[in-house]
């Protein structure tokens, strides 16, 4: 399987190690992983801010770079959702383009969805000892039905205990530019999330979308919590690099 890997702009700049962890997982699942070098952003910030035109330009750029692969995988539910659910909306006025969007969208997957349902990875390359709790990021959950997949992958690791938090599916308040435009509101939502995390006594909060994780980590640290670990699921499943 030739997999085109879309790093996402946030992982590219903020947490490259998540990208490499994801590649190790894909390779462990037997995929040939290719990272198109000209990739940048999926267009979501513009799209969700009402800038349809530039979002469409980025959709076209994506098509040109990724259409040839058997699968496209992203370590982010919201970027995968952008491609699968919203690119068709951006291209709906052009039937030929629309058909291409739908075709590539059907082959585009969020990382855990791909590992659990397509590549069927059984043995995780990483090890993890201890309790963790999982936050369900909104787009992955509601646009792509990612809920069981990360839990199944985590449960397959011998040392992992999953302590579910209450309202794991409630938004953490990130919302892209929302987190800056409506900072107070966003902070309150993050605060609620932090309380639910603390109540699990898990010690590690795991999620599949870096934006949410930065938001949660930022609030935890500001609240003086310097010990709760915040990890992307790829880092847990793949382990840290030697």
């Amino acid at each position: 399987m030739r997999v085109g890997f879309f790093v996402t702009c946030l992982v590219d700049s903020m947490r490259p190690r998540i990208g490499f962890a994801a590649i190790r997982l894909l390779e462990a699942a037997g995929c040939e992983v290719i990272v198109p070098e000209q990739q940048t952003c999926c267009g979501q910030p513009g799209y969700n801010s009402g800038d349809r035109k530039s979002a469409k330009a980025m959709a076209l750029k994506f098509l040109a770079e990724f259409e040839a692969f058997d699968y496209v995988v992203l370590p982010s539910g919201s970027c995968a959702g952008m491609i699968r659910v919203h690119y068709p909306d951006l291209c709906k006025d052009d039937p030929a383009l629309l058909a291409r969007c739908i075709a590539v969208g059907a082959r585009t997957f969020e990382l855990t969805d791909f590992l659990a349902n397509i590549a069927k990875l059984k043995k995780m390359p990483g090890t993890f000892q201890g309790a963790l709790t999982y936050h369900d990021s909104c787009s992955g959950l509601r646009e792509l039905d990612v809920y069981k997949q990360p839990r199944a992958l985590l449960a397959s690791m011998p040392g992992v205990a999953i302590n579910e938090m209450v309202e794991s599916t409630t938004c953490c308040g990130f919302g892209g530019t929302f987190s800056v435009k409506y900072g107070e509101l966003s902070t309150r939502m993050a605060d609620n999330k932090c309380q639910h995390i603390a109540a699990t006594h898990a010690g590690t909060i795991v999620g599949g979308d870096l934006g949410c994780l930065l938001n949660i980590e930022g609030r935890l640290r500001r609240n003086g919590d310097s010990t709760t670990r915040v990890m992307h699921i790829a880092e847990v499943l793949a382990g840290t690099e030697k």
Partner: protein
Amino acid sequence: MKNNSINFKRQVTIKLADVKLQSALSRLQSRFVEGRAAVISEISDFEETRTAAAAIRDRVLNDLEHWLMHFEQQATARGAIVHWAETGADVNRIVAEIAVQHGVRTAAKSKSMVSEECGLNDALELAGVTVMETDLGEYILQLAHEAPSHIVAPVVHKNKEEISDLFAEKHQLPRKTGIAELCREAREILRPAFLNADMGISGANFLVAETGSALIVTNEGNGRLVTTLPRVHVAITGIEKVVPTLEDVTTLLRLLPRSATGQSITNYVSVLTGNKNKDDHDGPEHFHIILLDNGRSSLVGSEMQEMLRCIRCGACMNHCPVYQNIGGHAYGWVYPGPMGSILTPLLGGLEKSPDLPNASTLCGACAVVCPVKIPLPDLLRKLREKQMERGMKSRRETFMLKAWAWLALHPPVYALATKFGVRAMSLLGGKNKLLHTLPGASGWTDGRDFPAPEGLTFREIYQRRNRQ
């Protein structure tokens, strides 16, 4: 009601700091979210029912004029008088005229959000008609001179203690603390209002075209008293509420109470058809139905038409993490939460509500629960697109969006910009790897640290490795 949604941001600050409000809002989860979750499992084909309900609403909206004419014909044939109101002021004028025509001095009112749109109570008081709200929640708000903060549970922002204090002060009676006692006290005060009222005013959850009926769902029985005891009944609702048949209504009724209050069915479902006939035991001698447009018809046929499917269940706000944290008053007009963030700009003007379409993470919790499958996040995004098209976004935001798009479409420059950007941020992060302030992003850093980047971009490391 005056549209104050321009003050949204300021209101958010106030509401987040309001301790009483926050404790009152914490009940939403157990009362409505868990309540809904428990009863929707009673319907084995819940998703199919949602699809069917959306289709019923679409069928009407795609041919609204026809169904309204059909409704008017049937209602008129059964003795009701149908009035058309273009604006809220028209509704007020029509009700005042009806009051004059029938010598009305007092009116008893059951819950109607459309009448809130019009500011009907104030207008009637000016016209010399005393209006008494009889829905318990609305009655409390009338005493407190406050607006509803939720379309189904108007007084959800208040706790029991506040209501005890309010009753003791306004009723001049010893302070009660139990819910049953408080209800009894309200009931004793309201009863004469029902018996003496010359006019009853209600809303209508649905208008049934085939029978010309106005249908209301209530829990307190006040709706029945208001619509049957007084000699004049005026039902006020929006033009979009029409539904072809009673059969269609049964489908919608499987969803409305379940989505709204977590009830399988409300205590009362009243189908009000025509005025009192000679051999009827009760009912109003005169039955007026006022249908308000107030901008709704302009949505028909537009890309926002789906919003008119709304059956006002409130599920979208109950499940909205923004509403859950700020309550309904912050939204500044009659309709709060996700549906209000769309309706308020659509009915009141986008320029008057610049924040509402943007004050959402687009988390999608609303769309998942909406019984008529309104794609609320998509509609919010469409409003953002309109703001962009009409140049209503700030210069700064427009510039940032354009700059980001330009960079993303020019990969070599993008690579360079990110390379230096992340290095700088990583240095600023220091040994704790946290930025406490970030220029231009105080919205983030006022309440949160910003975790610093690792220092190199993925693409840099990847290229380096590939060269080796």
